[in-house]
């Protein structure tokens, strides 16, 4: 039996018949009691159940009845009747004579509204907290609530229609008698499923949240869950009472609980603002004390598994890197599911993920919000597929301005000495510093003549020539034997040619004698995304790309006092990465041991900054102890926060397209 048929049956057999009868304004007969219902024998108290009652002619309703009814309602509310309290406004519908389909629709709408009120505030809070808006723009949480309320209410309405229809079907077909327990069980299942879904899909938000944020959410979660379960339970119970006309057992909620819940919600909302007010950010010094320091070279190679590197080093196939490893130190670090932009920004800034501000490759800025939500958690499809097309949100790529901590090459260039950065994450648009910055994705950006690809912009033509030359060089011949032409062309333009260009641009940039030089090579990581050939061929490509990097290291190293090579598995899924650190002053602490010391990427960055002659920031950990570091020229509380730079809309869109074409989005 379909749900619609059940609802029609209910309409036929219930008080609705009684409601509708008078409107016919003619004598008629009440429907007899349901055959299976069984009328108990009349007691002396006079329980009257005549089988058929003839109704007398009805008086006509006065004109404007609806208006009168509303006026009467209002009058009665003022006199203490029909007070539609928020807490019980669902249950009040339990005895309201409406057509079942309409009743279900209205009830679902009410459940949706209440669910929106229950879920939107914590979600808005969480999004704001995870994206750092609570401390910078606390009112963004309120704007996010407005963005989230309607979709949550709508989704909850639709979900309740489904759950309600299923409940109605079960109550009617299975003749569920303990509707209280049944509806509570269904509501609890909905609540647990929602919680599980939230924890599963919001892993990104949880990972990015600070301890106190997680603490606040952990405190709030039971209340939110309670309110959600209660809302669904009341909705289902109301439906069940209407359909079953059976004794029900309402689940109790005392006024005290309600007050407690509201107080807890207020606490959750206010706490971040209080904490933000009480913890002013440390002030950055006007100028940094600098020691002469040495020159630092850092190269990041993405998409290489640690065993692959270990194997090639052991076989002596990477002579330059091997030499660095033998005279320096090799470290390992654990690698989770952190996005590449976030991980490489830790290397650049020495700050962990929530603090450096780079947490995703793109983000969404809801209308009215000042913060771009780089972490969207489970709501990403909503922003992307609904709000952006409707014009309610902007889709924004990861911009350099999003980074809320200085990269070490930026700090090194403060004294006027040149810096060189090529293709490193979170460098678009390229900031103007002494030296040269080729922004992340510069190969494609130069091809599209996008602004912000290079700083200074005057270097763009020469670099564009290099890019063209890299493209003209064509893919390695060994790949041409195993790959079809289109696949090869795509692989080359996405992954291999860009790295050829970046290596060439980096080599050319070294002529500037930069104090800090950084290069990011992502060919293997990008190539692994949709690799068109077998694993053996990919292994060969790993060897070839690492050899190319090794040759570059060999040619670039002279003149640098500190060299750091970071080899990361990227999206290939390895659980650890490798850091090869070499200091001209030596790393005697390593003592030639073969076992790998664990090293946090932040500590590596701290060491690079120390090597550059920068003061030690209280926000950064100490450099790795196994190497010898110069004494810092001083200590500062913080290096400060870069001022945000806004890219033009067109360039943002181009960069966004680049990220998408490279398989990151």
């Amino acid at each position, binding site marked *: 039996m379909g749900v619609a048929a059940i609802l029609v049956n209910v309409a036929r057999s219930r008080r609705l018949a009684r409601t509708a009868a008078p409107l016919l304004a003619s004598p008629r007969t009440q429907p007899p*009691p349901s055959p299976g219902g069984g009328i*108990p024998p009349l007691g002396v108290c*006079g329980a009257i*159940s005549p089988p058929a009652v003839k109704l007398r002619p*009805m008086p006509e309703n006065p004109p404007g009845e609806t208006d009168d009814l509303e006026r009467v309602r209002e009058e009665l509310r003022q006199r203490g009747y029909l007070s539609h309290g928020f807490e019980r406004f669902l249950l*009040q*519908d339990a005895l309201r004579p409406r057509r079942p389909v309409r009743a279900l629709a209205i009830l679902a709408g009410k459940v949706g509204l209440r669910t929106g009120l229950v879920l939107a505030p914590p979600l808005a809070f969480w999004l704001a907290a995870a994206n750092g808006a609570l401390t910078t723009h606390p009112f963004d949480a309120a704007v996010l609530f407005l963005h989230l309320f309607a979709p949550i209410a709508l989704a909850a309405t639709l979900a309740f229609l489904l759950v309600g229809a299923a409940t109605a079907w079960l109550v009617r077909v299975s003749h569920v008698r303990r509707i209280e327990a049944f509806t509570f069980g269904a509501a609890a299942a909905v609540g647990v499923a929602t919680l599980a879904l939230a924890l599963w899909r919001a892993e990104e938000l949880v990972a990015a949240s600070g301890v106190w944020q997680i603490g606040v959410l952990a405190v709030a979660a039971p209340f939110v869950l309670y309110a959600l379960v209660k809302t669904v339970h009341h909705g289902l119970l109301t439906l069940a009472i209407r359909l079953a006309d059976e004794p*029900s057992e309402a689940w109790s909620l005392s006024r005290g609980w309600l007050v407690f819940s509201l107080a807890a919600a207020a606490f959750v909302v206010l706490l971040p603002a209080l904490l933000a007010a009480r913890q002013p950010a440390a002030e950055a010094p006007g100028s940094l004390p600098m020691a002469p320091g040495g020159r630092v070279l850092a190269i990041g190679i993405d998409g290489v598994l640690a065993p692959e590197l270990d194997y090639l080093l052991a076989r002596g196939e990477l002579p330059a890197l091997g030499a660095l490893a033998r005279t320096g130190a090799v470290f390992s670090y654990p690698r989770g599911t952190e996005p590449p932009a976030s991980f490489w920004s830790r290397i650049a800034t020495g700050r962990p993920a929530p603090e450096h501000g780079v947490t995703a490759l793109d983000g969404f800025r809801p209308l009215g919000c000042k913060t771009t939500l780089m972490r969207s958690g489970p709501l990403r499809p909503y922003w992307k597929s609904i709000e952006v097309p409707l014009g309610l949100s902007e889709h924004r790529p990861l911009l350099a301005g999003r980074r809320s901590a200085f990269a070490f090459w930026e700090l090194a260039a403060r004294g006027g000495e040149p810096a060189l950065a090529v293709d490193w994450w979170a460098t678009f648009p390229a900031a103007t510093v002494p030296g040269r910055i080729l922004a992340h994705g510069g190969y494609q950006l130069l091809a599209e003549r996008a602004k912000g690809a290079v700083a200074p912009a005057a270097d763009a033509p020469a670099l564009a020539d290099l890019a063209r030359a890299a493209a003209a060089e064509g893919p390695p011949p060994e790949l041409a034997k195993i790959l079809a032409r289109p696949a090869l062309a795509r692989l080359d333009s996405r992954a291999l040619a860009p790295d050829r260009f970046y290596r060439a641009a980096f080599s050319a940039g070294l002529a500037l004698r930069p104090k800090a030089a950084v290069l990011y090579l992502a060919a293997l990581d990008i190539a692994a995304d949709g690799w068109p050939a077998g694993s053996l061929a990919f292994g060969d490509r790993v060897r070839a790309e690492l050899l190319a990097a090794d040759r570059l290291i060999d040619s670039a190293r002279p003149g640098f006092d500190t060299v750091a090579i970071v080899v990361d598995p990227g999206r290939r899924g390895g659980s650890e990465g490798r850091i090869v650190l070499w200091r001209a002053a030596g790393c005697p602490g390593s003592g030639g041991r073969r076992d790998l010391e664990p090293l946090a990427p932040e500590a590596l960055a701290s060491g690079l900054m120390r090597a550059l002659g920068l003061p030690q920031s209280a926000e950064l950990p100490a450099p790795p102890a196994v190497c010898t570091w110069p004494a810092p020229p001083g200590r500062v509380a913080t290096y400060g926060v870069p001022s945000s730079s806004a890219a033009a809309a067109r360039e943002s869109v181009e960069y966004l397209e680049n990220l998408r074409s490279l398989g990151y989005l």
Partner: protein
Amino acid sequence: MTPVPDRGPVHPPASLSPGLLDLGRRVELRLPELLPPADQRPEAVHQAMRYALTSPGKRLRPILTLVVADLFGVGSRSDRSTRVLDIACGIEMVHACSLILDDLPAMDDAALRRGRPTVHRAFGEAVALLAALALLNRAYALVAEAAHHLPAKRYTAEDMIHHLAAAIGSHGLIGGQALDLSSSPEELDLERLEFIHSHKTGALFMAAGELGAMAADAKRNELELIARYAKNLGLAFQISDDLLDVLSTPEEAGKDVGQDTLKVTFVKRLGVAGAQTLEAELLGFAVASLEPLGKKAEPLREIARFVQHRRR
């Protein structure tokens, strides 16, 4: 898929469950014991009292008292339950008194009540008046005595008597009846209509619920919940009464119908459908008011459902 027959509601909506009917029977059995013997002088008054009190009624108000007391922990076999039963019977006596007076020629001049001739038709106006007063006094005595012996910490016997007196007096049932008699249909606005109904009917419903709660030593906030429930229930009951006056025959209703033709009622103001909607909303709110009391309050929800579906 095998079609499953529609078994319909568990309890036919126009009847009370066996449990509530049983409470009504307890009241029915107790009432004659609380009246003077019919053959004792003055016989006519005693017979009229008995006639009025033992006629077949729904006993909804005393049932309400007993259910509420039970809800807050008064069992059915203790000495305390006997006292509560007496209070419930006192409530029913007040109700019977009000019906006698309401049916008098000076008021509604009704001929039928509970399927039988009204008291003044059966015994004469003078005896009817005296019987009504006697019932009222008996009710006060009963409630006072029962309340005096109840071990309630939060409420004194005086509190309970005051509650009952307030429900009956010129600020209660009598006040509502007086305004009902003195108001012409033209001047009967919503505010007056609500006043009449809430005092004529609602006040005794509230007293019934509240005395049950007080007898069980319920907390103040629980007492408030019951009062809110009873207030909405009382007005809904009156609206359903008005609906029955329009929709039923004398045989079905057990009393004269069409009595309200010249009166202003919610049915007149809103039409049948509007009045039914309002009645359901009031009952819905009454049900919602019980939510903090949990599953124990189910009998009260059942009473609300009964009011919505009653045909008498």
